[in-house]
């Protein structure tokens, strides 16, 4: 029996609205983070998923709360879509005790196990086998769940991804690898390494698994494709792969001099024509007034979350050297002088 609140979003008008709202929430959170950085109120690296919100919202929108997700260095959107609270994220980025990792992880190490967000991984493609193994183990433990692992186009070159797809084929695991092909791996154009959009899915199909391509500027299309694939993954326990095409709209990371390799307004012009948020407003459809109201409500929500995060305390200094091992182990060590 599935609890109704455990049901993923479907295709009702309110479901579709939910997908839209998730995208707006991601956009607002990430632009909020950018402002904090530009205002000198935050440090560390930050990788924006602006323009790619449909992948996070569309794919994770198909999941149940108990389903699992692993993510990349560019994972704030995935975290939000999986239900992580903005305050916890911001607090983490501020290095505060209230942050999801108590300030030890930062932007590339968001984890929220309670809502099935197993975590980001700053090592490109390194999280894919985690998702595969977690899904496989959960299935063995009698849980009817699936896992989604996000990876970038660049990450497809990493050996561990190929190894994991091979192992997924051999062992079977209810895993969907969601590859966000945003046309760039930092400065490397996807065409140089992989070819035209769709080639990555073509390559993945060579592992003997279902592999599909979908355009990433239409959250409803992403959602339909993902829902169908995730249903199949859940039913069969077999892995699948989806390539979602978008564009990276911001620089690779906050202070990356992308003008060195990219026409400066490429991102902006992509958003003008392919912004998944604008597209969703058109397709839902939403009146401008309704859209503005939603965007303003969510902007307020995020602003409040940021304010709430700033209420937090600096992580205690002693936490820098604790929590490396289990509590029992560290206690034993203090006793015995390790």
């Amino acid at each position, binding site marked *: 029996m599935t609890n109704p609140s455990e049901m993923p979003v479907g295709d009702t008008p309110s479901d579709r609205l939910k997908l839209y709202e998730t995208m707006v929430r991601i956009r607002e959170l990430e632009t909020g983070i950018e402002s904090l950085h530009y205002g000198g109120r935050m440090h560390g690296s930050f990788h924006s998923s602006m323009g790619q919100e449909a992948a996070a919202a569309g794919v994770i929108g198909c999941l149940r709360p108990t389903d*699992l997700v692993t993510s990349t260095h560019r994972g704030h959107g995935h975290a939000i879509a999986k239900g992580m609270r903005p305050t916890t994220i911001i607090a983490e980025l501020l290095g505060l005790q209230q942050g999801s990792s108590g300030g030890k992880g930062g932007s590339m190490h968001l984890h929220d196990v309670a809502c099935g967000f197993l975590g980001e991984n700053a090592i490109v493609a390194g999280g894919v086998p985690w998702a595969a193994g977690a899904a496989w183990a959960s299935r063995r433990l009698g849980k009817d769940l699936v896992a989604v692992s996000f990876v970038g186009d660049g990450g497809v070159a990493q050996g561990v991804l190929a190894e994991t797809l091979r192992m997924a084929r051999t062992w079977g695991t209810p895993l969907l690898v969601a590859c966000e092909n945003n046309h760039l791996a930092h400065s490397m154009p996807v065409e140089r390494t992989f070819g035209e959009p769709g080639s990555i899915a073509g390559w993945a199909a060579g592992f003997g698994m279902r592999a599909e391509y979908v355009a990433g500027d239409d959250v409803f299309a992403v959602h339909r494709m993902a829902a169908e694939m995730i249903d199949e993954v859940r039913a069969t326990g077999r892995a699948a792969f989806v390539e979602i095409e978008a564009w990276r709209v911001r620089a690779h990371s906050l202070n990356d001099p992308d003008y060195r390799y990219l026409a400066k307004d490429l991102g902006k012009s992509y958003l003008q024509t392919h912004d998944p948020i604008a597209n969703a407003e058109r397709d839902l459809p939403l009146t401008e007034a309704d859209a503005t109201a939603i965007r303003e409500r969510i902007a307020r929500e995020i602003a409040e979350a940021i304010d709430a995060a700033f209420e937090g305390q600096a992580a205690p200094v002693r936490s820098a050297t604790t929590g490396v*091992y289990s509590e029992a182990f560290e206690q034993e060590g203090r006793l015995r002088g390790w």
Partner: protein
Amino acid sequence: MAGELKYAEAIRRALADELATDPAVVVMGQEIEALGGVFTATQGLAERFEGRVLDTPLAESATVGWAIGAAMAGLRPVVEIMFMDFITTAMDQIVNGAAKLRYMSGGQVAVPIVIRTPSDAGTGHGPQHSQHLETWFAHVPGLVVAMPSTVADAYWMLRHSIQDDNPVVFVESKYLYFRESGEIGATGAADHPYAARIARSGRSVTIVTAGRMVAESLAAAESLATEGIDCEVVDLRFIWPYDREALTESVERTNRLIVVHEAVGDFGWGGEVCSWAASELFYSLDAPIRRLAAPRAPIPFASHLESVIVPDRSAIESAVRDLARH
């Protein structure tokens, strides 16, 4: 003797007993299911524990990553890496994943996995099948490093490691698999799980060692005893955490310390033990601390070359003799 097992059998028994005791335990690796392990450590287990002892594709990195994910989801995976040299293909998952996840998730994620892997020269496997790399792992915060030298320890330390909530790199001695036999006994370490073991008590010199070198050190100690040099042999059992209480107690009595290991000496774990002792036990030392370990070279194939590299009882004897003379 009825109760005697080989070292490889003790590993197998420990796996079997953990599989029987804890349904969360699974064993993953190459050639462990159909073949039963290239060193027979899993022989018969796949049949006895259906679906829980599993052959992986030839993909160490994904295998360790998969085990990490499985551990996150509630299992206790034991991964076999066939030879320690091959662990180089999985370092990212071990070091950036298993070792750091608890810390970087603020305690949300635990990774109770064991990575079993054999090392040692002396079996003619050549330069890519013999390297001792335990020092690397001891240098990485978040990992535990076990290195049993006896049948009892192979058994009890493995059982303990599987139940440990921290990721453990478990270094087996492929030299001892079929050479060392003994009884498992009724229990593991006397004091606490990570305690060192006084393999031989003595008053003249403390030999600190682990793994295969324990037996070599004991043999050397027997022969040195006839010369009036009474060695204490401390079997560390764990390279990390290592038992500083036992070392202190021993060196305060003998006032002489030598560390013996099979890993390359340069930047090997002996350096850690020596320099800790040079700092903390300085005033107990009557002579310079010595290290005896492999020279700076890969393990050659030819056995007469291999034996130049690996410290043996006679090398230990002369090093200790030298030290005792000081």
